């Protein structure tokens, strides 16, 4: 298996607080890796370090053998990393289709002269990708709706579709099940599993232990910024340090 993402001693300090503390791990092509940990463990910060939203205080991140830390988010995205956000960030005043098309446009390139004088090739390629992504999440019937007008659960899928329209090699999902009920969470788990089955490499942050343990091949556990476990779900489930972190057992 080829390694897609390598995180090496990633550290991020916010003033006196070390949100991510020397975390190292790798993600191979085609893997489905879960990241769990209590509130404030540093999961989102780790994602922001990978996608370039937060600069590292120390450490390195490589993607496809290229060093990506220190690069701007849009450059990292163009290398093939799509992401979603913990607190759902869509473009509310744009249609569902237009939301998704932005993901495709960002990857295929956008320039003024091309839009004015260019032919249809670029826009058709963008439209094709956007449609494919919408069909993947089953939102094609709502393509013309304003994103703000669709239900919360569907907006979650819209955000994922927008990342999929980028046709990324790695997709990182920050708590996609947050705010969903049990049925919706089960559906989402099945969807992510299918996505992975189709060959997508997925890095998934989740609070919902059941979801992560149920579908991930490997689970990375963070607590207070440190990695305390990195193994298969059934191993992590019995890990003393993990139980301690989750049950709050004091030494």
């Amino acid at each position, binding site marked *: 298996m080829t390694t897609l993402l390598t995180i090496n001693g990633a550290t991020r300090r916010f003033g006196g607080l070390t949100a991510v503390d020397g975390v190292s791990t790798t993600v191979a092509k085609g893997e489905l890796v879960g990241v769990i940990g209590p509130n404030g463990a540093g999961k989102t910060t780790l994602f922001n370090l990978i*996608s370039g*939203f937060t600069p590292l205080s120390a450490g390195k991140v490589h993607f496809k053998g290229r060093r990506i830390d220190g690069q*701007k*988010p*849009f450059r990292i*995205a*163009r290398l093939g990393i*799509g*992401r979603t*956000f913990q607190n759902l*960030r*869509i*473009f*509310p*005043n*744009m*249609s569902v*289709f*237009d*939301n998704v*098309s*932005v*993901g495709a*446009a*960002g*990857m295929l390139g*956008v*320039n*003024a002269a*091309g*839009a*004015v004088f260019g032919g*249809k090739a*670029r*826009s*058709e390629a*963008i*439209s*094709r990708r*956007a*449609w494919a992504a919408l069909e993947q999440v089953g939102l*094609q*019937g*709502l*393509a*013309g709706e*304003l994103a703000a007008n669709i239900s919360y659960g569907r907006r979650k899928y819209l955000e994922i579709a*927008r*990342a999929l329209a*980028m046709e990324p090699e790695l997709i990182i999902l920050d708590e996609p099940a947050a705010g969903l009920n049990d049925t919706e969470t089960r559906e989402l788990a099945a969807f992510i599993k299918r996505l992975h089955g189709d060959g997508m490499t997925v890095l998934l942050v989740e609070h919902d232990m059941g979801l992560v343990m149920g579908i991930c091949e490997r689970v990375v556990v963070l607590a207070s910024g440190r990695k305390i476990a990195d193994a298969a779900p059934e191993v992590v489930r019995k890990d003393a340090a993990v139980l301690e972190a989750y049950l709050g057992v004091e030494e």
Partner: protein
Amino acid sequence: MSDRLRPLLVVAAVLVLVLGVVPAVLGAFDRSYLYQVANLALIFVLLAASMHLVTGVAGLLQLGHAAFYGVGAYTAALLTTEAGLSFGWTLPLAGLGAAFVAVLVALPTMRLVSIYFAVATLGIGQMLYLVMLNWVPVTKGPNGILVTSGLTLFGYDLSRPASAYFVVAVVTLASLWVIHRLSHSYYGNALRSLREDDQCADAMGLDTVRLKIESFAVSGFFAGIAGALWAHTAGYISPADFSFPQSILILAMVVVGGLGSLPGAVIGALVLILLPEVLRPVGDFRNIIVGGVLFFSILLMPKGIIGEVSALDLVRRQLGGAWRGEGTKAGSEVGWR
């Protein structure tokens, strides 16, 4: 009606109206004042359309737009009066000059957000205005510049009111076509995504800073073009034409018409230029009426005369911006050319 035919008919209708009906009516009355009003209306349509791109679509609140209009006007006026260049040169150079100044302004200010950006553009507008007012050796200061020549193209004199109107109309229509292609395409969607959430757009692979600077420059370019049209048709320019109240007037056109809506910007400009002219017989009281119309229209139609959503819908239907999805499923008629 066939889907191929409809866009052609819409375009033909606009051309007949602007290049046929309006000049025929103007010709029937044949008063230079009416030509002047028609030119002014078209120039403000272009100004509103250019501000629509940066403020309505890209979401950058621009409070100094009139200054770029002024840069274009002064560039054209000085190139004509000092260097003897004709319209074929002054028009593009006015656009490029304004775009150049816009890029200079944009580089340091693009990282500012929302209200801070707006205040920065306010400051820039004010600075440029003061340059026009006080750089007397070049701009002639408050006395302004008389532009009596220059409206010639390939040796043809186009300065008669009727031909000048055609020049303004053709340049405005061509510019609107470009702005239409920009705002109603994947490019426009990319700009809209900056307005909605620029960090998020960044995560989609969009170079947000470059796009913002680009939209600012394009908007400045067309404001400059509008300036050249004004300089050559009004015959006289002075700093007051490009002061802060003018920026606010353009902003009002864009908002009343519908923020983010190109047809709205056009209609907003026509309303706010033509209404005061129509109301001329009632004297100074008309200003109060115009203010009242502004107030109530925004109260009753906060999204504008044609809001963004309906405008995009309209453009898609009338101009065939739709790219049909695979198959012909219901609701698949979305997407942009």
